[in-house]
């Protein structure tokens, strides 16, 4: 008898909890924890090297009729890069479920260490799908790209979480500073895609 009472009370408690916390949850969902701006960038015409060792012209890679997402990471990074990369993977998985393949670019901020071999292993470790490229290059070129995105940092240990999404329509970039939930990231991506 006591057990049944306990189960009933458990269910009651759960409902109570849900009711009590729902407004909090929805309020939290509305308050973005990241900063969003729309920017226009003048980017250098540089040739970088991808995880397959192929030389790729950055401007060619960024152009096209689909949104492009860019972030800055490095192969042995802790804290931020794994979180950004988990975000990329989740976006790939969510869009793959709809038969879509987003174009994702990670640019290293540790070009001396991040060789194609290191980058390929990194992508494999995160179980990335095709469509996610990891780029390295000369330090001068990488610095120029960071400066082009107003994201220059003098040392990789000072970096911060940043995602950039390029609109294929007007070439403007949505700049997202901070860590997004995968739902927020997807919404940001789709808002660029739909506009």
């Amino acid at each position: 008898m006591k057990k049944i009472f306990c189960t009933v009370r458990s269910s009651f408690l759960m409902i109570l909890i849900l009711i009590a916390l729902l407004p909090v949850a929805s309020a939290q969902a509305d308050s973005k924890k990241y900063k969003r701006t729309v920017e226009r960038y003048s980017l250098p015409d540089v040739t970088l090297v991808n995880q397959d060792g192929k030389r790729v012209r950055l401007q060619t890679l960024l152009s096209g009729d689909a949104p492009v997402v860019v972030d800055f990471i490095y192969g042995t990074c802790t804290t931020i890069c794994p979180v950004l990369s988990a975000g990329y993977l989740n976006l790939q998985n969510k869009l793959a479920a709809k038969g879509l393949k987003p174009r994702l670019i990670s640019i290293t901020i540790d070009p001396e260490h991040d060789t194609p071999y290191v980058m390929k292993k990194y992508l494999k470790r995160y179980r990335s799908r095709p469509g996610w490229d990891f780029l390295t290059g000369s330090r001068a070129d990488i610095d120029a790209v960071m400066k082009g995105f107003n994201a220059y940092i003098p040392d990789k240990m000072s970096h911060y979480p940043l995602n950039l999404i390029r609109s294929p329509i007007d070439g403007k970039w949505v700049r997202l500073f901070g860590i997004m939930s995968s739902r927020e990231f997807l919404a940001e991506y789709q808002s660029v895609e739909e506009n």
Partner: protein
Amino acid sequence: MHVLDCDSICCLNNLYGAVNLVLTWRHTIGAKFIMNRIQFSILLLVTLLLSSFSTFGYAAELLPVDLPKAEIIRLGERMYRDGILPSGAPLTAFIRGDVEVDSSAFSCSSCHMRAGLGSVEGGVVTPPTTGNKLYQPYLRPSSLDDIPDRTGRYVYAKTVSERPAYTRDSLATALRFGTDPAGQVFNDVMPRYPLSDSDMSILIAYLEELSSGYSPGATLEVFAFATIITDDVSPADRAALLQPLQTFINGVNEQMDMYDKFIYFNYTPTIDMKNAFRRATLDIWELKGALETWPRQLADYAAKKPVFAVLGGISNRDWQPIHNFCEAQRLPCLFPITDYPVISESSWYSYYFNKGFYQEGEAVARYLNRDSDLPASSRILQIVQDSPAGKTLASGFNTSWSQLEHPDVTSLSFSAQQLRDTTNLYRVIKQYKPAIILLWSDDSPTSELPELLTSLAAPARIFVSSSYLGAKTLSIPDAARAGVFMTYPYRLTPFTGTKEGADSKVPILASAKDFGKRRITTRTITMLMQSALQGLRRLQDNLYRDYMLDVMSMQMDQVSLDYERLSFGPGQRYISKGCYIIQLGKGSEPALIPRSDWVVH
């Protein structure tokens, strides 16, 4: 919540257990089972509420796991370092609510570091996670870093300014739900781990053991160090190594004498000062005879007097036995002078300046990979002197060439005597008709190089190692210099001082006089600046070998006299990543002409 009777608590505990069960079950099922958003929200809400209950001490008690302690530590270490659960499945977690992450890509130690004392990187301050630290109240000292952008380091996420001590149960709540004992919610970069009670108990037992006792060779009063010298090293090279080391040890102890005098005259030191001064001793571990006997000799030295770290060292022979010993003993071995570092992606305790001869071979592969005139691999002939240097250069080239997805080149091994006989060389050239020769030798006559070049097909190039050739590099005749390319793993741009400011500001230029110089003293000074200034001085009272390595791995890039750039990162153990491909200008004091960047991709 404060008026709950014991029945309610019983119900909550049942509920709590049920949630755990669901999470564990969900985890075990893995990717096959995907919770919908409503299910996930319900779980999250329930768990949030339960976390607040646990704050008031109502959570189920976390019981120890019934396994031998050594097994618990082994399993806990695997969870902490590799993100693998005791079941062998990857540890999954959630960031920012719904970003699911797999901890085999990054684990606890990625951010909290191997010693568990945390890190500062990417503007994220990761707090310590050892039992010692967690079970005490925490008060963050105010810091200049509280001012944003003071040094260009944007502090994105700081630790809380204050929290009460954790208990085992509140720690379990923190790991599951991201709230500390005061109910403060963690930053989003900290994943939330839906661990079962037994897995949680194992992980917490590991955290309690982590960095729980000082490493051998260190006390609050004194650091014991050693350096390693093998019996093949010349007296001059030995002196070049020991001079800066002795100066360093004397300097440290003189500082300590001065500090003792301050104390004697009633000066009250700050805590920082107390931790800044510590005496140091240096033992010389001399290794004699056959390589096979080195591990025993090292073990005897270490047993006689344990040391905190091996500061540098020098050998002309294989470094592998020393490397293996340091790895097995978890003993930091910092920047020895060797051309034969062990090439490993997983070794932890040995730091090297670079990969030695191996890196020079790699540089040639990367350079050729970018060569617009590159002939087929079948037109590249690798001639390898049957020596450790020759083999290591070839190994670096072959591995890198293969990673760059080129077919193997033909490699021929010759003794020094065979290489002195040039008819032998012409015979193989006639046979293989190469366009490019990689000549990993210090015994083939450089006077023959012009003739050799004319016997090659276009584009007719010969690659050599300037480190291997040493002073003989200068004997390459002017007539051959247009066709001979060489590796040069040192700085070419003028050196005007490091950021530490301890060097001359008068630019020092690289020149042909550098060929053959082993740079023992300058590199040992760099080692000391690295180990002592960047590692030891930041230890405070955390006298753990792993922590010193953690601190060293998280530092900003440095410039040094010998290398263009030294760069770091968790797990990176070869700090100079570059090697130029150069050519010589004409004359007896030729210009060193770079034909590549410092780092080639």
